[in-house]
């Protein structure tokens, strides 16, 4: 598929933004779940969705998903720092949970899997309303072992829901390698539940984007759900300060050489979309934006501890 220069540059920026989050938030919080190596999947999946589409992102990449859907960088940063200015008012964490006002479904009680069911519900609501909005449910290879994942796919197929399932397969779950966590091929579960299954190179942002576009178009036009398996590798540790003594460092290095950001940058330069100089300037601007948003959020007020009001757990009655 031929793409406009604008789309290509937007994809690049989303990848670079993702990389920069890692550097800024990872340095701040050792429990930040690193994104290195997965930038192409993350950009390709979340770029170009509507605000009214529902997205249940995989937690690794959830911040990029929120930003791609239009959430404000500084407000998200405040949410990673537990500031009162955040979307969650400091009550919850923005690194694993995006703002619902942008169609984001995150982890609330921390269990992987249930958000895929909530995303199916988002698709169901769209169908009931006869809208052409879609729902995107993203999960890791490890999360694919949850019953919720199997059940959501089966139900989406049975009800012909406007939904796209995407597996962000980075071949590991904490320390559990793909072969120890997943029997068979994830992509085969598409046809097994009654939907097309597509497998793409997760380090090729355009391959991911092409597969997404096709699946989203199918879902918008009543063609039902699709499963996309993106194959990549978790170059990052499970979290930023992970000692990673359970992995072969040579394997990590081999994948680091396949860095998707470098690969896409080279392609943009080779195809004359942008010069290396201008891309370096883009990188610097994004770096400044992210660091600036983080530094500003750091100065934001912390929540007032007297605000632990049990009354605030219930929504008001409709007027």
């Amino acid at each position, binding site marked *: 598929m031929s793409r406009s220069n604008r789309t290509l540059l937007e994809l690049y920026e989303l990848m670079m933004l993702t990389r920069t989050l890692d550097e800024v938030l990872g340095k701040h919080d050792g*429990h930040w779940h690193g994104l290195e190596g997965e930038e192409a999947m993350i950009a390709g999946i979340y770029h170009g969705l509507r605000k009214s589409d529902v997205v249940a992102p995989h937690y690794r990449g959830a911040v990029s998903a929120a930003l791609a859907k239009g959430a404000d960088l500084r407000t998200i940063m405040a949410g990673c720092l*537990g*500031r*009162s200015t955040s979307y*969650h008012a*400091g*009550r*919850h*964490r923005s690194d694993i949970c995006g703002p619902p006002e942008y169609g984001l479904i995150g982890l*609330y*009680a*921390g*269990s*992987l*899997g249930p958000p895929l069911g909530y995303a199916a519900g988002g698709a169901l609501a769209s169908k009931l309303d006869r809208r052409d909005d879609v729902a995107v449910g993203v999960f890791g290879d*490890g*999360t694919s*072992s*949850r*019953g919720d994942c199997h059940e959501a796919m089966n139900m989406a197929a049975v009800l012909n829901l406007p939904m796209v399932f995407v597996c962000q397969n980075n071949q590991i*779950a*904490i*320390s*559990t390698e793909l072969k*120890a*966590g*997943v029997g068979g091929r994830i992509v085969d579960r598409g046809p097994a539940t009654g939907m097309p299954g597509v497998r793409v190179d997760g380090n090729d942002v355009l391959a991911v984007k092409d597969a997404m576009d096709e699946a989203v178009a199918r879902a918008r036009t009543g063609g039902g759900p699709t499963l996309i398996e993106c194959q990549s590798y978790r170059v990052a540790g499970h979290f930023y300060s992970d000692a990673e003594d*359970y992995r072969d460092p040579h394997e990590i290095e081999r994948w680091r050489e396949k860095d998707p950001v470098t690969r896409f940058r080279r392609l943009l330069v080779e195809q004359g979309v942008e010069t290396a100089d201008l891309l370096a300037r883009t990188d610097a601007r994004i770096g400044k934006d992210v660091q600036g948003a983080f530094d500003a959020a750091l100065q934001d007020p*912390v*929540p*007032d*501890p*007297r*605000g*632990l*009001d*049990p009354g*605030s*757990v219930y929504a008001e009655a409709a007027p």
Partner: protein
Amino acid sequence: MSRMTFQQAVVAAIHREMVRDRNVFVMGEDIGKFGGPLRSNAGLWDAFGAEGRVIDVPISESTFVGAGVGAAMQGKRPVVDLMFLEFLALVMQQFLDAGAMHYYSGGSQSVPLVVRAKFGVGPFHGHAYDHHSWLANMPGVKIVAPSNPADAHGLMVSAIRDNNPVLFLEHMALYHAGKAEVDPEAGEVVPLGKAAVARTGSDVTLVASGLMVKRALAAATTLQESGFSVEVVDLRTISPLDEATILASVRKTGRLVVLSEAIGRGSSVNDVIALAADRAFTALKAPIRKIAAPDIPTPFARELEKEYLPSEDLIVQTVRNLLHPA
């Protein structure tokens, strides 16, 4: 005797039982070579991995806890690591079934299963939810919540030897927080269903478990300086409840304050209150007080989290007001 952290004591207990009984095995996510998050199973792979008794499983909680139930039905003694208590909701049906099996089978079936879970506000920012109280509503299920390394060891040995499904709670603020003397080969082990009087006193009884015991003891020391004599009952086992120890203490002091790290609504400590109101009413000299987290989900911001948990100060204040009403 040797000095161990809570985490080391739990692992030492499992190790001891795996040596003693070949039916004991461990199962969970990332518990093999990796040793489990927060070192929850450190060393077991080297000792028993080759025998196939340390089993890494996919992220399939309902099924691997279910498989623990099924293996226990066949006479195995699985120690399943759920990783975090937040995931308890995913395995409620399995606990409900397992708890009913002995009774419904007419007594022929037993389910010697231990499910371990880390929880609690601590250095690990996240996965703090304490939802153990859900299981207090399930007949046949035991709940164990140690407050220190020695009890963690003794109670784990007892839990593995017990013929019932046991939820074993491991508080993350206690997990690596200092070492204490543990006798890893003790002949007598801490029995399930038996509370401990962690400190004797005569003016008021504080009933707590886990981290709240630590805070209750600290508060008791502070109150001692003002001349208040505080007794602290460490439940150790939350189900079944050691009614005799609680009642004896309340009848002695005439005052009761219960502590809950979880929200107060539906909390397992409410049963302690009901017990005292029902069976020690005439001994009470003051209203029973409950100190619990407010009825909201555990908040994220450190400032909110700190305020959310019952603090030593709040315990001290509550006891002062009870003994010397303003």
